[in-house]
């Protein structure tokens, strides 16, 4: 008689699952924050596909407040997902790195 395959419930839990359970998972606020952040990144990347943009231009293209665009753009820049370029009318132009 073949051994029965262990059910999902019998499988040992991964450490991350233990941690998630211990802390009750992601809070509602963090989930909203994360989803909003992903939406902003998507909008910024889409706008930058059309060419270099300054922060006020991106704010207009994405219909977002300039301070929020600045913060998220700098977060992308920090991790190499956006590059800063030359100056135009007192602002820097930002681009997507070459794939």
């Amino acid at each position, binding site marked *: 008689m073949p051994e029965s395959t262990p059910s999902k419930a019998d499988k040992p839990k991964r*450490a991350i699952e233990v941690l998630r359970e211990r802390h009750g998972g992601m809070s509602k606020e963090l989930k909203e924050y994360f989803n909003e952040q992903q939406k902003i990144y998507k909008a910024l990347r889409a706008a930058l596909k059309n060419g270099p943009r300054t922060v*006020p231009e991106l704010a207009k293209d994405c219909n977002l407040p300039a*301070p929020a665009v*600045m913060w998220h753009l700098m977060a992308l820049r920090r991790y190499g997902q956006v590059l800063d370029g030359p100056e135009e009318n007192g602002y820097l132009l930002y681009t997507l790195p070459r794939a």
Partner: protein
Amino acid sequence: MADIRDRYDALVIGGGIAGMQAALDLGEQGFEVLLVERTPSIGGVMVGLNKVFPTLDCSSCICTPRMAESAHHPRIRLQTYTEVRQVEPVGTGFRVELECKPRYLNEDTCIGCDECELACPIEVPHEFDYGLGARRAIYIPHGNAIPQKAVLDLEHCIFCGKCEKVCPTSCIDFTAEAKQVRVDVGTVIVATGLEILPMDKKPEYGGMLPNVMSPLAMERIQSSNGPYGRVLRPADGKIPRSIAYIQCAGSRDRSIGVPYCSRVCCMYALKQALLLRHYIHGVEVALYYMDIRAFGKGYEQFYRRAVAEGVNVIKGKVARVTQADNFDLILRVELLDEGGRVDEHRYDLVVLSQGLIAAWHPDGVIDIEDADDGFIHTPEIKLNPSFTTMPGVFVGGVAAGPKDIPDAIVEAGEAAMAAANYLKRYRWRSSKPVAAVA
């Protein structure tokens, strides 16, 4: 890393420049020191500064060797990300309760490669950049951090497990928990440093507007490893063409509970203003002051240099900062050298020269007193400036009151000497003395 021993000669609370200096001075004299820092890296405020006055040395370049020396000293045990919960006198020494917070990884096997940080999908405001830049939920505190070990900020973790998957040494340990540790020490040095007065203390100065900055945020913006890579304004990334400094924005003001002079604001503002003139060609920098206090060695010459290089110092009291539609700022100011004429000026960016306040208070942890100004009370200020209200507990650096880096180092050295004298007097030793061979 070896476990914390149960007995040391001295506990130093705070791993900023003063705490490191005190620990090194005691270590060099042969004492065994436990240096405890509550954040994930030593270095304190100084390692995040751009340059120091009046020499304009790169701050992290002169701070990191001290950090490395403290971390590698054979008689200093460094314990980061740890809170001191209780210090109780026992005989002539002290029993100390520590809480070592979990980094959620094995510090011995973490190689600081950054792979976990690169894999983490969420960005949150980075404390090291005063919120202007981003870090991830798992991160290495900064490029000069010691130890170069990652730390997981559970509050912002989305529990995706990506960090664990990419770690080349499998050091991530999600099951880690805080550890309570008890240690006996012969003496304690408090070197818990400073904070800047909160930006919302004087709403009329617009401290919560995006282009009104704290001086520490400006330090990060000016730093080559800062959040923007160059000087830009936070609201919209504009390269500022005009910048105003408001002096005594958070000092010498009874209405906000800071009646004292913070001693460093004139000099850090002059330094930042001068550097802005270097970094942005043709930028207009105005510094509104009550009176310039350039009291230290070489400071008056530095003030003259800043003025000579185009920093516009204006004796005036700013009444209000408001924001225009395009994030520009309008300063309403009483010009004291023009008979009190009230004027309005428009600037791209404003820096509030906020005063210094104590970063830590001993209530409930150790039975020493704060003074009226919120810093640690030093009852023998003239002849024994590092003595607190409890024998065997000493204070060094800004924990005892506002001061600049050289004064903090001098005072920390004095605290170490007083602590060494105390240990000698009561013949406290954490270990058997090594036999001398003639």
